[in-house]
């Protein structure tokens, strides 16, 4: 059993994702504890220079036209082959849109345990202890793999990115599995349509979640935003319902915002939402559930009904 940690480097549109550096930084710390190395794996096309900007102990990359864009089938195959070949102690994959297509399938293909939604990792006397954030951010579960080796899927933003930046010896390797008979074919990237407003550029955001109750109440939020001269943003269920355009969505699959003040009304604070707004300078949360996780990241909070608060605040601002 090797002692190395394999990290899947994630990239999109020619740019490495922060999660790559976050995992690499953590992997170096853990690998030192296990007496192994942090080995990043980069799959792509024309990615030598990207490989050179990862601060792991070493970087392996596969360069193939079939990898020009993320392809879950191609990635899954190559990673399964690499894991079988190299027997790493730990495999680190992002618990991201890309990683969520891979980790659980690899766990079955390689017969390695998977611990997902990980936001804490420690080498506890030679054993890896992984802490998962589950139940919408309300519970933490610290687990140990039953055997020595395992796969961990790491949440974005869980570890600092700085220590994963830098450079390392890079080595191009031949594709460890064939890529000429894929059933999944990438067709195109679809960029979001430009919105009427850019929520990433607002000093204040009136952000609403499912607590708004119904489409007819959206105007209460809009009236407040008009009074403040800012925009309305939202959690995912509001854009999924079509009550606001997709360009207003804050979070993991939406936009990351850093306003001076983020007013979170009727938003529970699921990890996927927090990912997009925890960097706001001041967060005010209004939620009828005093145990809602949003209060753990908010600076100020109140448990009143947002449907009463919205008109009251609009009145105050209008003066």
């Amino acid at each position, binding site marked *: 059993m090797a002692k190395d940690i394999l990290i899947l480097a994630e990239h*999109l*549109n020619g740019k490495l994702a922060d999660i790559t550096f976050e995992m690499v930084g953590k992997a170096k710390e853990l690998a030192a504890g296990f007496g192994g190395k942090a080995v990043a794996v980069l799959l792509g096309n024309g990615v030598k220079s990207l490989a050179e900007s990862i601060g792991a102990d070493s970087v392996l990359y596969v360069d193939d036209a079939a990898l020009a864009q993320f392809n*879950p*089938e191609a990635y899954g195959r190559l990673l399964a082959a690499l894991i079988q070949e190299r027997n790493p102690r730990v495999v680190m994959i992002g618990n*991201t*849109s890309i990683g*969520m*297509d891979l980790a*659980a*399938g690899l*766990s*079955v293909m390689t017969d390695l345990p*998977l*611990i*997902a*939604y990980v936001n804490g990792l420690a080498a506890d006397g030679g054993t890896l202890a*992984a802490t998962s954030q*589950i*139940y*919408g951010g*309300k*519970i*933490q*579960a610290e687990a140990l*793999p*039953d055997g020595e080796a395992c796969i961990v*899927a790491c949440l974005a933003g869980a570890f600092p990115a700085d220590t994963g930046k830098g450079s390392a010896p890079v080595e191009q390797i031949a594709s460890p599995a064939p890529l000429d008979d894929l*059933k*999944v074919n990438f*067709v*195109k990237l*679809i*960029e*979001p349509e430009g919105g009427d407003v850019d929520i990433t550029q607002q000093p*204040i955001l009136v952000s609403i979640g499912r607590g708004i109750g119904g489409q007819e109440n959206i105007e209460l939020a809009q009236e407040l935003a008009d009074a403040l001269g800012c925009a309305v943003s939202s959690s995912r269920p509001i854009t999924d319902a*079509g009550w606001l355009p997709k*360009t207003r969505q804050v979070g993991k*699959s*939406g936009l*990351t915002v850093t306003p*001076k003040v983020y*007013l979170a009304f009727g938003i529970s604070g699921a990890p996927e939402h927090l990912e997009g707004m925890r960097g706001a300078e001041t967060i*005010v949360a209004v939620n009828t*559930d005093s*145990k809602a*996780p949003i*209060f*753990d990241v908010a600076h*100020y*909070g*109140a*448990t*009143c*009904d947002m449907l009463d*608060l919205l008109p*009251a*605040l609009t009145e*105050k*601002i209008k*003066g």
Partner: protein
Amino acid sequence: MNIVVSIKQIPNLTDELEINAEGTGLDHDALQYVLNEFDEHAIEEAVLAKEATGGTVTVIGVDTTGELDGALHTALAKGADSAVKITGDFPRGTDSHTQAKLIADAIRGMSPDIVLTGVQAADDRDGQIGPMIAAHLGVPYVGVVTGVQVKEGKAVVHKEYAGGVMAEFEVALPMVVGVQAAHQPPRYAPVSKIRQIAKTAKIDEVTGGAGPRAGSTVRRMFKPESAGHAEMWEGSPEEVADKIATLLAEKGLVKRG
């Protein structure tokens, strides 16, 4: 088109989640279970696909609560054609590895063209079921999908990345899709219709064998000790509004009138 939807019940997250005496899991008996919300979207997307191309929708799940029938009846009321539950010694909170293996074994013989399931569930500590089912069946998986179109042995799926960027993939069927959101909000089934179906519908029962295990063991479960907690403002909506207005004024973002 033979469409299968795999569903899973999870604790209702708006309930107070209590941890068991050993501190290693939830006190499941104290909890109410509901259908995973992403599975609701998977059911909707399946029914939409059937409406667009014809075929049948079969909904399947492992009965970990003794109450799966309710969720299956609701799916039938929304347009699914048949329902299957896997029974056996599978307690509440049965891990994903076990559920995925049971479901894969049960649907292999159905030769599905496409399997839809929720992209994740709030209790997927050991990973999501969809990619595991795909690996067991040896078919491709694409997740975080917001739209599926099936035609002539292929599916065109839209996968979401961050920032609203999407990738379009064309996949040779069969495949498994992890649905993030149906391309229209899940339909509502009237209670009267669900009641009617509960009286007449037949749910097929499959006895599940022993599954694999999660492969990891929880040694400590706890509520997050948050680094900080909001300073709470008490009082009426007017008083809270006043506090917010003052804060915005202090930051120079509004004029205090």
